[in-house]
Every structure is written in structure tokens, then in C-alpha cells.
């Protein structure tokens, strides 16, 4: 029942938003917030059952023999769902401030599709098999298109087309065959602890299938299928924040981890040498994306490339194929979500308050927007992996996993990327706080509207909180590992 | 003798066909295709297909020529010289012909009593007709009863063509009718041509009589509803040519024609439905009377009447629809 509610709440919410928009804007936004809170409470209420080892499920119907439409909650999915639904609340607060302050049009469409995108995200998180996952994966792509193309001018539509094109092409062209192949050899696509391919598929074919999956899941943005991510930055900042720091990209890496853990089986994959390439592909992406990020001057584009790098971090962690690294990977999903959403929020706040979009414009802005820039600093530190932020915790686990398997490529990549991250974030932080303001710029702005500041403060606090109080999270994630063992 | 005659007729058929395609004058093409149909009919007669010969003559040489001529009167008399190259098509067609000829070498021998067509199914009809229906013309028996469902379909094909032409052309004069000095049928008919008019009027009753003969004699000799319908329609078309279209429409107004089209088709269908109501299958006529054989004969008579009525109505409707269009 609770599972069903997790879908009904946002869908009904979307309809109510539509209805409420006829009455007044305030009511519409009230409904949005209420829906977000209700959804979060609903999703979070499932955690205790899960911690005690329960695996709630909801089997709806069998579409074809062997292909069900159903949901089953396991720790990894729970983590993702809880994250997405929780951050939706914060994001709603932020959106209200942003959309009003920038006087965006078609706000109702924005909120409706936002709610639908969250529905799809929850669907991805809870799905019990590859088919259901694929269904919601595509729904998410389609529901986010109106959000990305929100502005509606020619340039935006062109970028949105790249977004849609890359995601649909990879999913239909690669992911779907991979899923079909899986069903064909294993006879099922259910997510099963320990995987379903052992004994069904061996040798280089396994590596090939892994390739189809990883590149098919375009949302994970492993190079060269990362092109959509910078393109999607034409979206309004709240969209970039939630969808491209949390929902869409995390749906990608989540799916990768889920496929590795529950379809391939960590041990089965580890034993197959031909799957080793994934680690190198991910490491390559991490380094190259970081170098590209170095050269960006637009804040959002910089963040986009940073995201590409961080996502491959997760993929790489998963590809180490050791329990500790898997914990690190799922931990990094959370840590990066908190950190990156803070950064995006800050970028949006800067744009709203000062209409600044470029890095070089930020000199000395810290004095005018102390809250925003403090949060930005915390987020950036988390990206680099400096204590006391969540980023440190996840990197710690990943490193530990890498040492466990004596994987020196991974270790080198982590160290190298940390240096690179520091190289593109630290100068910004330095300039923000310690440079003089450029006198030729407009200097009459203060902080962004209060809902935005509130939201980014919350996420910054969460980033630090993740460092201090991460025990329950690790307990939850250990359950995934427990399954793996 | 028959062999020589057969060769002669077939060769003539081929020559006519080539001439039809070659001629750039459409009028000549149409007249030649009328001849073609007559030659074909003679061929059919040589092959023991009297019913088919009669129908081919009535349809190919009669109705189809009238329709084509009416259409020519409205559209064009000459074909434009073809511009595209025809060599490619010619080569393909010749190759296909050779392939077909090669393939037909495997056919069963001509008129061989041991051929499958004479062994299976057909003998049953010849035996069963006398026993179950008791009429001489086996073709009519197969057409009306054994394969009556096909014939029902055939009636509805005619029906469809009829309503199709009415739908396309309507019952109103076409957009160019007013500007037309030479209409297909002169409003006054051929009244100022004494000889054709007198002879024509004299012939009409005989044609009608012959039509009715063909209609009701179909069970005994060649003939049946379709041929009869064509003949009766021809008589009335002749009347329209002689006396003017309006006079013909006074005799049989358009509303009546629509009624005939629908009525004939319905008549056939309803006879079929009676089979169901009387506890047997659709189109089983034997239940129409207490004596199954009489029932079959009665059924055949009624359905042939239905066919005749519909065909008459459709052909006349098509003629009037064409005639109402102007020339431009």
C-alpha cells in the first residue's frame, strides 16, 4: 500500500497542481510543497521495515510470460528514493523563490512535470525488474524534456533535442537490446541478490553485455555519451539542481550499480576479466571531464562537467567490484547529491540576485552574498573531498575498496581527480572571498530571495551532516553489501 | 476443323489486342475492344462455355462499349503521344511472357479427361444438379445454389459499383453541362432522324422480350439474371438515345432506379435469410418449399430475379450519371 501511495501521491499532486493553478499561484505552490512533504514522509516511513530486513514488494501484473510489472524495495533503491523525495522538498522551496524572482512563464507546466519526473524517479528506484526499470527510465526522459526546454526559444530547443536525442538513442539502441539479451539468456529480468547471469552467460559476451548496459544507460554520462549533460544546462537552475544533480544523473548511476549488483552479480563479474574495461572507461571519464571542467568559464557548464566526472566516480567505484567500494559508490550518490545540489542552488541564487553566470564575474561576491557563498564553499569542498564534508566519507570508502583489491589505477585516479577538483574549485573560492570586487559591475544586489537562501543553507548543512552523522546511512548501505556477501 | 478455327480465332484475338493498344485514337480502341469481346465470346463458345459467351458478348461488346463511349464523349477522343521511353517496359513484359509460356508447359494437357479439374468436385455438380435441383443448366445451378454465396457477392460488387458512380458523379448535371453544345444524349433525342428512330422504336419491345426470355430461361439454357439485366438496360438506354434522356427518366425516374438497385440486392439477401429463419443455413433454398427440389428451383428463380433487377438498376443509373455530365 505504501508503495502504491508513493506513486499516487505525486501523480495526484500533479493533477492538484493543475487544478490549483486555476485558483491562485500561492495555492499551486502550496500544493507542490504539501505533495513533496507527503511523499517524503511516505517514502521514509518504509525505512524501518527495510532496516529490519524486510523487502516490501508490489506485484501488479504479468505483461508477458516472464515479464512482470512490479516493484520491490531494497536498500539501494530505498536510498535513492529517500534521497530524491527528501531533496524534492528543499528544491520546491528553492523553485518557488527562483521562478518568482525570475518571472518565468508556464510555471504550472513546470511544477506538473516536476512532480511527474519525481514519480518516474521513484519508479526507477523501486522497480523489481529490468522491464519496469526501463519503462520508468524512458518516462523520466520524456517528462524532463519539457523542463529542459522550458524557455522555448530556438537555442533551448536545439539543446533539448540533443538531450532527448542522446538519452533516447542510447536507451533504445543499447539499453533495450541489453535488456532483451538478458531476458533471452536468463529467462527473467528480476533484480536478484547475487545476479541472474551466473551460469547463463560467460566469457567476453559478459563484457559486451556490460558495455551495452553502461553506455545504454546514457544518464550515467560515461564518456562518450555525456554530451546531453552540458546541453541540458539550458534548463532553469532548479531543474538543473534537482534533475541533473539528483534525479536524472543519479538514476543513471543508480541503474548501473543496480545492474552490476543484482543482474551481473559482483562476484560473477569480478571473475570475468573481460569486464575490466569498465574501470578504465570510468577512470578516463573522471580525468578528462575534470580537465574539461578546468577550462569552463560558465558556472553551470563547469558544474555540469564536474557532474560528469563525479558520476564516473560512482561508476568506477562500482567497477572496483569490492563490497567496501560498493558502499562507497552508494555513499557517493548521496554525498555528491547534497554537494552538487548546493552548488547549483548557489549558482541559481547568484544568477537571480546578480544576473551573473560566468566564473570571472564572481570576484568578491562573498561579501554581498555571504550565506550563498558559504554554502557554495561547503559544496565545493565536498566535491574535492575535504573533511568535514560528505564527499570525504564516500571517497574514503572508495579508496578503502580500491586498496582492498589492490587496484592502483583506481587509487591513482582518485588522487589525480582530487587534485584537479581542487584546481578548478579552489581558485573560485579564493576569488569569491578574497578578491576585490570588480568596480565596473553592478554592485547594488544583496542576497537572493529568502526561499532560495533557506534551501541552499539546508543542503549545505546536510553536506556537513553527512560527515558527522552517517552511521544510519552506512548501516543501510551495508545491507546491500550484506546481500553481496 | 475446330483446331483450325481455334487457331484462327485466337490469332485474330491477339491481332485485335495489339491494335487496341497501338491505336492512338481512343474511339478506334473502344470499337476494337468491342470486337475483341465478340471474338472472345466466340472462343468461349468453342470451349463449351455458352453462358460465359453470352455474358461476354452482352458485357464486353455491349455495356462496356456504351460506358466507354459515354466517357469518351465527355473526356477526350485522342490519346496524347506517349513521351516516356517504353523499351524498358517492353523488355520486362516480353520476359514475363516467356516465363509464363515456359511455366504453362507444365499444365495438364488441354481437354484431358484425367486432369484434376475433371476428376475432383466438378463431376459431383453434374450428378447432384439433376438430383437436388433438377434443372438442365448446371452452370445456373452452381451459380445460384452450390456457390450462391459467390453470386451474392457478385451482386454486391455490381451494387458497389453503382453507388460508387452515383457517389462520384451524383445525379446532378456536372459543372460543365451548361456550356456543352453536343451532349451525350440530345435532350430531344434523335427525333429529327426518322429512320433510326422508327427502327429503334420497333426494336425496343423485342429487346425487352428477349431480355425476359434470357432471364427466365436461364435454368434451361444459357442465360440468367445478369445477362438479362444487361439486355433490359440496353433496351432502355436505346430508348434514352432515341427519345432523349428526360423521356427515359420519365419512364423510370431516378428514385425508382435507386429502389431497383437496393431492392434487387435485398431480395437476394432476404431469400438467403429465409434459409436461416426456416431452420437451415443461409442460402439454403430447399427449405422454401415442402419439396426440397421445388424449393431449390423457387430459390433460383427469385435470386435470378434479384440479380436482374439490381443489374438493370445499376447499369441504367451509371448511364444516366454519365449522360448528365457535360462535355468540355
Amino acid at each position: 500500500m505504501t508503495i502504491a501511495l508513493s506513486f499516487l501521491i505525486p501523480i495526484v499532486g500533479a493533477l492538484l497542481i493543475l487544478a490549483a493553478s486555476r485558483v491562485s499561484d500561492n495555492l499551486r505552490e502550496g500544493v507542490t510543497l504539501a505533495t513533496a512533504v507527503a511523499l517524503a514522509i511516505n517514502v521514509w516511513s518504509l525505512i524501518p521495515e527495510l532496516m529490519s530486513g524486510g523487502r516490501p514488494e508490489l506485484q501488479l501484473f504479468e505483461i508477458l510470460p516472464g515479464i512482470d510489472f512490479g516493484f520491490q524495495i531494497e536498500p539501494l533503491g530505498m536510498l535513492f528514493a529517500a534521497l530524491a523525495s527528501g531533496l524534492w522538498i528543499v528544491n520546491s522551496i528553492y523553485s518557488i523563490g527562483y521562478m518568482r524572482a525570475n518571472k518565468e512563464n508556464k510555471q504550472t507546466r513546470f511544477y506538473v512535470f516536476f512532480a511527474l519526473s519525481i514519480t518516474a524517479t521513484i519508479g526507477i528506484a523501486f522497480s523489481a525488474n529490468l522491464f519496469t526499470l526501463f519503462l520508468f527510465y524512458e518516462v523520466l526522459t520524456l517528462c524532463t524534456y519539457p523542463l529542459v526546454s522550458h524557455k522555448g526559444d530556438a537555442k533551448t530547443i536545439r539543446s533539448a533535442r540533443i538531450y532527448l536525442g542522446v538519452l533516447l538513442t542510447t536507451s533504445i539502441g543499447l539499453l533495450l537490446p541489453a535488456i532483451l539479451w538478458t531476458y533471452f539468456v536468463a529467462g527473467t529480468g528480476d533484480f536478484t541478490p547475487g545476479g541472474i547471469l551466473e551460469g547463463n552467460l560467460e566469457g567476453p559476451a559478459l563484457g559486451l553485455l556490460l558495455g551495452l548496459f553502461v553506455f545504454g544507460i546514457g544518464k550515467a554520462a560515461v564518456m562518450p555519451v555525456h554530451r546531453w549533460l552540458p546541453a541540458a544546462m539550458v534548463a532553469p537552475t532548479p531543474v538543473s539542481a534537482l534533475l541533473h544533480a539528483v534525479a536524472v544523473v543519479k538514476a543513471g548511476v543508480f541503474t548501473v550499480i543496480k545492474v552490476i549488483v543484482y543482474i551481473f552479480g559482483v562476484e560473477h563479474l569480478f571473475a570475468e576479466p573481460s569486464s575490466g574495461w569498465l574501470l578504465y572507461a570510468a577512470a578516463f571519464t573522471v580525468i578528462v571531464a575534470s580537465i574539461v571542467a578546468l577550462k569552463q568559464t560558465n558556472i553551470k557548464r563547469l558544474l555540469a562537467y564536474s557532474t560528469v566526472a563525479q558520476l564516473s566516480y560512482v561508476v568506477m567505484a562500482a567497477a572496483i567490484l569490492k563490497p567496501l567500494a560498493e558502499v562507497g559508490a552508494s555513499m557517493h550518490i548521496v554525498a555528491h547529491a547534497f554537494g552538487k545540489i548546493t552548488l547549483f542552488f548557489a549558482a541559481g541564487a547568484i544568477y537571480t540576485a546578480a544576473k551573473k553566470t560566468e566564473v570571472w564575474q564572481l570576484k568578491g561576491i562573498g561579501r554581498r552574498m555571504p550565506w550563498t557563498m558559504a554554502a557554495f564553499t561547503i559544496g565545493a569542498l565536498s566535491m574535492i573531498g575535504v573533511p568535514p564534508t560528505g564527499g570525504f566519507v564516500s571517497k574514503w570508502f572508495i579508496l578503502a575498496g580500491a586498496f582492498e583489491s589492490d587496484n592502483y589505477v583506481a587509487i591513482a585516479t582518485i588522487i589525480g581527480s582530487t587534485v584537479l577538483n581542487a584546481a578548478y574549485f579552489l581558485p573560485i573560492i579564493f576569488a569569491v572571498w578574497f578578491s576585490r570586487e570588480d568596480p565596473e559591475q553592478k554592485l547594488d544586489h544583496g542576497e537572493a530571495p529568502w526561499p532560495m537562501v533557506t534551501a541552499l543553507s539546508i543542503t549545505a548543512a546536510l553536506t556537513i551532516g553527512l560527515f558527522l552523522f552517517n552511521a544510519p546511512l552506512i548501516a543501510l548501505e551495508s545491507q546491500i553489501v550484506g546481500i553481496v556477501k | 476443323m475446330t483446331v483450325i478455327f481455334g487457331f484462327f480465332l485466337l490469332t485474330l484475338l491477339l491481332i485485335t489486342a495489339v491494335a487496341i493498344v497501338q491505336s492512338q485514337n481512343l474511339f478506334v480502341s473502344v470499337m476494337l475492344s468491342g470486337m475483341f469481346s465478340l471474338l472472345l465470346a466466340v472462343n468461349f463458345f468453342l470451349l463449351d462455355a455458352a453462358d460465359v459467351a453470352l455474358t461476354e458478348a452482352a458485357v464486353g461488346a455491349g455495356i462496356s462499349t456504351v460506358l466507354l463511349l459515354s466517357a469518351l464523349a465527355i473526356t477526350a477522343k485522342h490519346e496524347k503521344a506517349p513521351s516516356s521511353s517504353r523499351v524498358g517496359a517492353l523488355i520486362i513484359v516480353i520476359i514475363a511472357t516467356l516465363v509464363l509460356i515456359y511455366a504453362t508447359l507444365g499444365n495438364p494437357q488441354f481437354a484431358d479427361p484425367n486432369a484434376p479439374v475433371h476428376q475432383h468436385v466438378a463431376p459431383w455438380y453434374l450428378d447432384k444438379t439433376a438430383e437436388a435441383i433438377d434443372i438442365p443448366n448446371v452452370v445456373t445451378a452452381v451459380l445460384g445454389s452450390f456457390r450462391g454465396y459467390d453470386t451474392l457477392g457478385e451482386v454486391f460488387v455490381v451494387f458497389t459499383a453503382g453507388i460508387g458512380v452515383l457517389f462520384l458523379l451524383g445525379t446532378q448535371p456536372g459543372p460543365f453541362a451548361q456550356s456543352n453544345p453536343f451532349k451525350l444524349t440530345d435532350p430531344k433525342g434523335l427525333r429529327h432522324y426518322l429512320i433510326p428512330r422508327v427502327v429503334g422504336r420497333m426494336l425496343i419491345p423485342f429487346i425487352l422480350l428477349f431480355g425476359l426470355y434470357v432471364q427466365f430461361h436461364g435454368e434451361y439454357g444459357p442465360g440468367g439474371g445478369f445477362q438479362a439485366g444487361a439486355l433490359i438496360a440496353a433496351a432502355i438506354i436505346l430508348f434514352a438515345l432515341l427519345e432523349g434522356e428526360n423521356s427515359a427518366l420519365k419512364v423510370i425516374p431516378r428514385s425508382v432506379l435507386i429502389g431497383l438497385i437496393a431492392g434487387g440486392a435485398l431480395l437476394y439477401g432476404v431469400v438467403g435469410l429465409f434459409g436461416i429463419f426456416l431452420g437451415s443455413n443461409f442460402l439454403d433454398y430447399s427449405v422454401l418449399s415442402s419439396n426440397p427440389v421445388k424449393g431449390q428451383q423457387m430459390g433460383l428463380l427469385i435470386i435470378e430475379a434479384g440479380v436482374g433487377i439490381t443489374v438493370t438498376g445499376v447499369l441504367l443509373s451509371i448511364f444516366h450519371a454519365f449522360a448528365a455530365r457535360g462535355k468540355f
Partner: protein
Amino acid sequence: MTAFHSHLPVLQVIVPMLTAPLVILLNQKRLPWIVATAASLCAFAIAVTLAMSVMAGQTIQYSLGAWPAPWGIELAVDAFSALMLLVVTGASSVALLAGAQSLDKDIEHHRQPLFYAAWLLALSGLAGILVTADAFNIFVFMEISSLASYVLISGGPDKRALPAVFKYLVMGTIGATFYLIGVGLIYMMTGTLNLADMAFRIEDVADQTPILLAAGFITIGLALKAAIFPLHIWLPNAYTYAPNMVTVFLAACATKVAIYVLLRFDFFVFQPNLVGHDFQFTFFLLPLSLLAILVGSSVAIFEPKLKRLMAWSSVAQIGYITLGASLLSVSGTTASVLHIFNHSLAKGALFLVMACLGMRIAQLRIDNIAGIAQKMPWTMAAFVLAGLSLIGVPGTAGFISKWYLITASFESGAMGIALVVIILISSLMAVVYIWRIVESAYFRQPEEDLVITEAPIPLLLMTWVVVLMNVYFGFAPGVPIELATGAAELLHGQTP
């Protein structure tokens, strides 16, 4: 089984058929439509009843005139024909229920009785082909349905409908005549016209040239009627310029019925016996299907006229159907039959949407519908869902048949991988051409202010009924799968 029940196969045909003459006698304003719709719904009810009987395991046979087969004409309804009957009668009923206003717009009032009569004849002709078990009877009903379709298409408001329908008439007649030649040659070698009897008696003579020739003639003739690439050239214009509702009806079923006959002959009559049967499929139909899929989709991508775009997409989709059949396996044929059903649903819905748009916009071009989603939100939402089904997104009917098709391709070994790749590429092409329309309707600004409203309620309602059926059969495809599997096993000579 009641006495009445046993007459259902023939009633399926003659109810619409005998209603047609009645309809032309009616000239009150709405009466022809009411009567035609009632007859069509009645036919649909019969089809549902027949399908239920078939699913209960019966093959229903009926002897016309109480003459036993093979001398009399026999009707037989099995899983394949039951499924097709559902499609045909369903498409007709939906189009009629939805189409009163749309047809008022295209057809003048005084011509409507004739039009509806032609509609019913087309319906009964198609149904007649499906229920009969007699080769020549198929020809007769094929001609009824063809002539009636010519009439229906010629009712299009654009004058270009006329050359289009003339081309259709010429090619359709050639197709039917080829079929007739094929049947004649088989008759010459076997002496029978009953399909089952034919299949039985053909075994002795299967290797002789006339039978091979007959197979060739029948295949080419029906391929013409079914618009199988490269014999599809009549289709785009005919669909484009027909009245919108006629396109809904015919696009959903006319070509598919020809494919039905083709599959019947190639698998049921010829298959176990004919020399070169496999060769014909693997080296002839398979490449053509692939070309159809790729060429049809490519042309659709660049086509500015909406209905024409849909028509080219149909050419591609017919390619999917023949592709399934040319895999020569039970699963391939299942996919093929299933795709007939599912594509009818998807394309029917899409053409209904075209009809909705056609009620409000004169020229259906991609540029003319810029921003129309604001004015017609329900219509365009229906378009999106139906488009997803056409693409084959999971959760829609289109996915089910693609799934089967891909599974069947996998089964056929190494070549299958290539087929899967092509299927997926063409799915992506479908995404492109559907998306062009969606993008124009949703994300482009209209040239000037559109002063239009949502489509009429009945039309919109039926559009959504079909769209929701697309979704329903995407999640609960039990019935069509059962019938399709039954049909495929039947065609491959396996008893279910």
C-alpha cells in the same frame, strides 16, 4: 451452442452487407449514420462472440446453402480470422462512432447515404475475406471491399484524391487479377477451391511449375494489395487524400487483411509442400521487409504533410509485419500477427488524432500545427501516447509486438542480431518523426494567434478510447497474444 449462435460466421458478413441497400434508401439527416453505426457495432459484437468461442477452443465452421465442402462454400473462423475480425469491425465501429462530425465536414449531406452504404460494403467485404475458407470467395469479397474503398477514398475533400484513387484502383485490380490467376492455376492442378482441401491435395503436385507460378502470382498480387514494399506506391497518396475517418478505418485494417490472405496461402496452403518456400521468404521477403522499414521511416522523417507522414510510417510498419512472417518460425509469425493487431491500435489512434486536427485546421502540415497543443491539449496528449505506442515504448501495445519481434529475431541466430539492430534503428527513426510533430505542437510558437478550440467531444472521446486501449493492451496483452499464438501455430501446422 444455440441455433442462432451457429449462424454467426455468416451473419458477420451479411449484417453489414444487407444493411447497405437499406442505407441508400434513407435520406433523413442523421439516419444513415445511425443505421450504419448500429450495423457496424452489431458486427463488432458478433466478432467478439466469435473470438470468445474461438478462445474456448473451437474452430467454427459453416456451410453455405447447407452444401458440404468442398462443393459448397465453407466459412471457417479460427484464431487468426477471429483476431482480424476484431480489428476490422473494431476499427469500423470506432471510426463511425467518432466520425459523424468529421464526415459531415468532408461529405455533402445528400451524398452521405451512398457513402455510408459504401462504408458498410467495405466492412462486409473485409469481414467476408476473413471468414471464408474458399479461395475464389476471397476474390469476390476482396473486390467488394476494394471497390467500396475506392469509393470511400474518392470522397476526400481534396481533388488530388481522384488521381490517388485511380492509381489505387489500377494497382488494386492488377493485384486482384494476379490473385485470380494464382487461384486458377491451383485449381487447375488440384480441382478444388476450398482452402483446406487445396492444402491437402496440393501435396501431390507441389513441385510442378504451375503451382510455383501460382505461388508467385498470389504473392505478388496480394503484396500489391498489402502495399508491401516496393509495391506500396499507391498507399501514401490514397491515405493522405482520403477523408480523415476513412483513413482511420482503412489504415487500421485494409492492407492487413491482404497480409492475412497472404499468410494464409503461403503458410497454410503452400508451406509444407512448396519447393522454394523458404527461399522465397529468406531471400525475397526478408530483404524487402527491411527495405520497407528503412525507406518508409526515412521518408517519414522528411515529410511535411502529417497524414502522408503517417502513411509512410505505415509502409514501414507493414515491413515489420512481413519481417516477422519471413523469419519462418512460430514466434516470428506470432510477432507478425500480433503486430497487425497492435499497429492497428496505434495507427488507428494516430489517424483519429489527425481527424481531430483536421476538424480545426485546413492544411495538416507540421508547420501549421505549431503551438497547437495549447488550444487542443487533449488531442495532442492523445497523439503523444499513440506515438509512443507506434515507437514501441514499454507500457504500450506497440512494445509488446516489438518485444516478440526482437525475441523471434534473436532466435534466428547470427542474422537475428542484425535484424534487431535494424528494428532498433527504425524505432529511433520513429522517435524522430513522431517527435517532430510533438515538438511543433508543444514547443513552437504559432505564427499568428490560433483561434481554434478542442475537437468535437465524440471524436475526442473515441480517440481516447483507442489511446487507452493502446495502454491497456500494453499492460494486459493476454487476449491478443493468445489469439496470435493460436494463429501462428495454426499457420505452421501445429495443433495448439
